[in-house]
């Protein structure tokens, strides 16, 4: 009888092994638990508080409510840097998908020697941002740069790539596409996952290469495209080093990126409260953009196993 009762309610008191397992589990993940608390969540709370203060490091933070956020909406530099970043993001995301996908298609053809070609196309990712900024500053030079040299060779006139507000942002887009081989790598992996039977059966049904690409490959690849678009948008908001080294945000703020603006506010003018508000505004913008892309995804992203 007593035995039957204990059988019915076996775990009133947690067993010793339960606590042992819990302790052991947390000992294993202790580094990341502490890391998240110290380097992520703690600073997040502090940053949220700073964004509500006037804080210039030399004196203690002074609470000002939502004043920083109100100021943001009247700050021309804020909107300029936002517009620069969004325009850059659009151009970069679109161009790098086209270039990355085109190269990835070439790199997954059935021809010999592809490993060598992959190395060539992937190599730019390992070039440090500082080195590639210095390098492209030279390539773009209006007086003696090789790019204008090539243009002149074809009878075209020189372009003041980084020196004119019309071309500076686009010049940085081209450079970012060159450095952005990660997009290509992800597309190659995505293309390799498309089952060959699918393309073969489309071929038997009489689909030509273009039809196979647009009606089989692209839909099958849409989750990969989706991933690359999201990371590309986030990447645009982190863009900093080339704008810092090559153009210093200019000419006339044509490359005054959001992140560059934030950096100047925080570390040049020591407006830590205002810069914190900018960081939270950035976070909200990224969340909204990501949600928008996510919400739109049922319209254009196809996941295998899904029925229509």
């Amino acid at each position, binding site marked *: 009888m007593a035995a039957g009762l204990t059988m019915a309610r076996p775990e009133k008191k947690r067993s010793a092994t339960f606590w042992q397992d819990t302790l052991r589990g947390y000992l294993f993940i202790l*580094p990341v*638990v502490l890391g998240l608390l110290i380097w992520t969540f703690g600073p997040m709370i502090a940053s949220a508080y700073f964004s509500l203060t006037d804080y210039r490091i030399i004196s203690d933070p002074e609470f000002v409510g939502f004043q920083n956020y109100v100021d943001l909406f009247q700050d021309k530099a804020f909107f300029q840097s936002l517009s620069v970043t969004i325009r850059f993001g659009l151009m970069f995301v679109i161009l790098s998908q086209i270039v990355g996908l085109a190269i990835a298609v070439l790199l997954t053809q059935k021809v010999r020697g592809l490993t060598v070609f992959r*190395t060539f196309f*992937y190599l*730019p990712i*390992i070039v440090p*941002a500082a080195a590639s900024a210095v390098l492209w500053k030279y390539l773009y030079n209006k007086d003696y740069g090789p790019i204008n040299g090539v243009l002149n060779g074809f009878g075209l006139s020189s372009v003041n790539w980084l020196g004119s507000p019309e071309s500076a942002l686009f010049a940085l887009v081209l450079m970012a596409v060159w450095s952005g081989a990660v997009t290509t790598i992800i597309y190659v992996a995505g293309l390799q996952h498309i089952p060959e039977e699918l393309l073969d059966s489309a071929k038997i049904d009489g689909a030509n290469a273009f039809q196979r690409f647009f009606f089989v490959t692209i839909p099958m690849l849409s989750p990969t495209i989706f991933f690359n678009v999201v990371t590309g948008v986030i990447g645009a908001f982190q863009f900093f080093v080339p704008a810092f080294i090559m153009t210093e945000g200019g000419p006339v703020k044509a490359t005054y990126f959001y992140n560059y603006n934030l950096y100047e506010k925080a570390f040049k003018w020591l407006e830590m409260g205002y810069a914190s508000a900018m*960081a939270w505004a950035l976070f909200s913008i990224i969340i909204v953009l990501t949600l928008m892309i996510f919400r739109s995804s049922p319209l254009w992203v196809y996941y295998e196993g899904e029925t229509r």
Partner: protein
Amino acid sequence: MASAVYNSRLSDSLQAKVTRRRQERISKGMIYALLVSGAFIFMLPLILMMSTSLKSYTEINRYPPTFLPEQVVPTNYTEAWSFPNTMFPRWTFNTVFIIVAVVPGVVLTSSLCAYGFARLKFPGRNLWFTLTLASIMLPSQVTLIPLYILFHKLGWLNSFAPLIVPAWFGGGALNIFLLRQFFMQIPRHLDEAAIIDGAGHLRIWWSIYLPLARPALISVALLTVLFIWNDFLGPMIYLTTPDNFTLALGLNIFRSYFTQVPRNDYIMAISTLMVLPMIVMFLVAQRYIVQGFVTSGLKG
């Protein structure tokens, strides 16, 4: 009669085969043409960097620029390396020092956490794993300022501590994710056998999982090396005196000496020196680096 029909059919299909082969050859030729020209365009910036680094001062000032140096001047490298008011040996040492201090921390702590998330059962595990993944989405700008103030209060500014210590706390959410995915694929009966033999989980992690996960650990280590070698913003914010600079900062200082007199031969020499170790690493271990990018899907 019947055989004549048969023969003409045969020759038809032979004809078709020949044309198809010819078409295939043409399209293969086109693929190679595109691959070669594309690869050339992508390599061109690096080729120009190296060729400029070997040109004479008169040649770099000539317009239009030459493609390959007419006269190879290797002394650009030694002159740039020991240029007044630079400390390239020191900056290289600092960068390597940070790498040596960070990589073991990343590999050990991220694999330890990944093991906990992949193999141990305990309350709150999924919550902490979700939080770890969610932290990837947080833009670094949000924590930048409080961390700067924290390091300031700790007296860590202008030391390597802000660049090293955080790496020992889990080694980055992406690395934990990458290793956890790898650990999940390791067959369970291996640890069960070890438990029967009396091994604890720490022992299983160290002597079964780490050796089996070697390719993934190499990916994590190499991506970390790449990240530190390339990092610019972190060192720029935390390091203030030139003797503590890293190579990336040093290159930027060096470049700023030549705004009036452009010495692109020198600047490209230093850039080449900075890129070469990464090129070598990529050529030797391309498989691991590419796999790392595919699994984690993000750069840095």
